[in-house]
């Protein structure tokens, strides 16, 4: 059972000073000593390889059906109009936003609570619990499909977005809790203690003192939960039947029939599916990198 607090991490000053560089170690050129082409050429090649598929999708989505031109000219938005209205992507988009945002909120809230418990308390099965969290990452969602389907069917949640949100949240939680707990471990315990001395309760101290310091971690966990649930196909396919409830990945899949595929519509659907993820990453990339690297190397 829960008996004692975890020992706060040792202050950085107490750690051993880094060893001096080995005298025989080869001199590494500084950034400004490296010829620019040695940096930009490989990056450029990599960029071209990365961008060509995106250009291809953009090309198919913007050029008229039947065109074989390598530039999207004359530009047409017919494919976008078709998928958005005729193929119900407007509805799918709304559903995906709802699933993504709800998963983000639920995952973040529960991961904060669970991560705090893992970081600040010692309890008898803590190590086993952490191990179980890690092991749960090895279980593919497809393996649990039938039991989950039965549970949701018995709870009358089949064909409800709630089932997808719940399943996505549950699958996101283990990794999110581990990440958040590492972030919390890096926040000095003395800060919380100072807040308690000033009259705060544990919850208020967490909200006022710890939470603002967890911003990179919250953004990392939240964006990961959003993007994963946005792209995830299996649960939405299996738990949702009604077309008005389906999400973007399932909608994309229905653009390919058994014998025929409308590549223009498929490309336009792909762009619609990708844009929110690109926007999310563009806004949060700074915090995301900080968040993942901090969570990875500390704790």
């Amino acid at each position: 059972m829960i008996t004692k607090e975890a020992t706060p991490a040792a202050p950085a000053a107490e750690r051993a000073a880094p060893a001096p560089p080995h005298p025989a170690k080869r001199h590494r050129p500084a950034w400004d000593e490296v010829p620019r082409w040695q940096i930009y050429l490989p990056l450029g090649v990599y960029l071209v390889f990365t961008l060509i598929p995106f250009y291809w999708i953009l090309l198919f989505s913007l050029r008229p059906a039947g065109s074989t031109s390598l530039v999207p000219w004359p530009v047409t938005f017919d494919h976008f109009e078709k998928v958005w209205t005729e193929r119900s992507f407007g509805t799918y988009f709304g559903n995906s936003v709802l699933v993504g945002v709800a998963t983000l909120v639920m995952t973040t809230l529960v991961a904060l609570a669970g991560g705090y418990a893992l970081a600040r308390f010692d309890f008898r099965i803590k190590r086993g619990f952490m191990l179980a969290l890690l092991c749960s990452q090895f279980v593919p969602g497809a393996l649990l499909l039938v039991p989950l389907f039965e549970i949701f069917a018995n709870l009358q949640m089949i064909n409800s977005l709630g089932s997808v949100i719940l399943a996505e949240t549950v699958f996101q939680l283990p990794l999110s809790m581990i990440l958040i707990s590492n972030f919390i471990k890096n926040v000095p315990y003395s800060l919380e203690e100072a807040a308690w001395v000033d009259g705060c309760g544990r919850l208020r101290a967490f909200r006022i003192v710890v939470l603002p310091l967890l911003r990179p971690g919250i953004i990392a966990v939240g964006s990961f939960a959003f993007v994963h649930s946005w792209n995830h196909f299996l649960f939405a396919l299996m738990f949702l039947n009604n077309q008005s409830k389906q999400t973007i990945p399932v909608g994309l899949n229905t653009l390919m029939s058994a014998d025929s595929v409308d590549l223009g519509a498929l490309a336009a659907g792909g762009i619609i599916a990708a844009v929110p993820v690109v926007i999310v990453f563009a806004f949060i990339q700074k915090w995301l990198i900080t968040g993942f690297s901090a969570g990875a190397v500390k704790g």
Partner: protein
Amino acid sequence: MKNSMRSSTGRRRVPAAVALGAVLALTATACGDDGSGSGGSGGAEGSGKGKITFWDNNGGVRTDIWKEIIADFEKANPDIDVEYVGIASTEYQSKVDTAIQGGGLPDVGGVGAAMLAGFAAQDALEPLDDRLAGSPLDGRLNEDMVESLKAAGGGDGTLYSVPTSANNGVLYYRTDLFEKAGLKEPSTWDAFYEAAEKLTDAGANKFGYTIRGGAGSIAQALDAMYGQSGITSFWNADGKQTTVNDPKNVEALEKYAALYKKVTPAADLNNDFTKMVAQWDSGTIGMLNHNLGSFQDHVKAFGEDKFRGIPQPAGPGGKRVQVSNPVDGLGVFKNSKNKEAAWKFIEFALSHEENSKFNRSAGQVPANLEAAEDAWISESEPTKLAAQALTDGSTTIVQLPYYLPDWNTISKADNEPNFQKVLLGKMSAKEFLDTVAEQLNEAQAEWDEQKG
């Protein structure tokens, strides 16, 4: 500092007990079988009124036409509501399999020949022989298609799915490129090989043919093999040994696989139908083997006057042999609580007018005999020729063993990588076909044993 979580044992036990109780309750409800899961036992004839659910096995592109048919049905049967669920063809089997195990099957759904054996083996489908015998549809459906679905249903001759339409292999070729090169229609295999070679100018990125090397490659290779060898049955006389590795088929496959990279793009190695069709529609390839389903894609790419779709080339002695394409159909799921209404929907969807409407949209051959006589068939040349090939006796159809539960695995996951090795010259055609034959013979023996 004392930890605030260090409270009395009693205080900690209460939430733990509540949590444990909730988990047990959830588990109990999850395990409680109401008869809706695994196979079918909880169904009922129902009142023939109320709501039924229909799962479309090729949702997306067919959604609009099904919604139109459903609207007609609801107008004709105001006391029945049909909920339409469109499911992509690639995911249909896994969705139905999950629902068979976990519950939540629809009342009626698309059940094509390729999936029929699996669903029937799980006892998920309602036998429909008696219903069809007592229906106005009796005698008005294409008998070959009915027999094909009976044969695919597990071997006891029971009808689990009523045919809606048939597909057929088509050789599409670019009339403008043929005319320019002074080539005649590729109606024989010799003409096909000659055209493939003459239309190829690899340096200019022009190719005579595009071969299917990725997903779905085996069915297409079988079509080419049996078409050239002229062998008309998939099994030999005693029905225990497949003819797949007959020396004539081996020779045919060697010739066919040798086309790869000689008259086809190198990228064909990973061609599934999507890439193959997209590649042909890009305009620099002379011929393509696919089925009726992609006709509209080619019309969008070229217009109707730059290409034709004809049945597979004729083989030795002018005899045309093709392998069967899966017949599509509709089945009633055994767990349906309203089988009467589900059957009414099937009857309606297969009526002359509705079946004609559906197949005109899908570009396939109607199962309803009156619908197959409608004027639109003769306006769509590939469909007309395919319908003729299937009905006028000019073509022998080699029935593939869709009834074998292992057929999908053998013809896809198990052997598609080996076919790629054949194309690359890393495996001989004989070695490949011997492997396939061994697996098929084993599957057939197992199936015979199970049948008793």
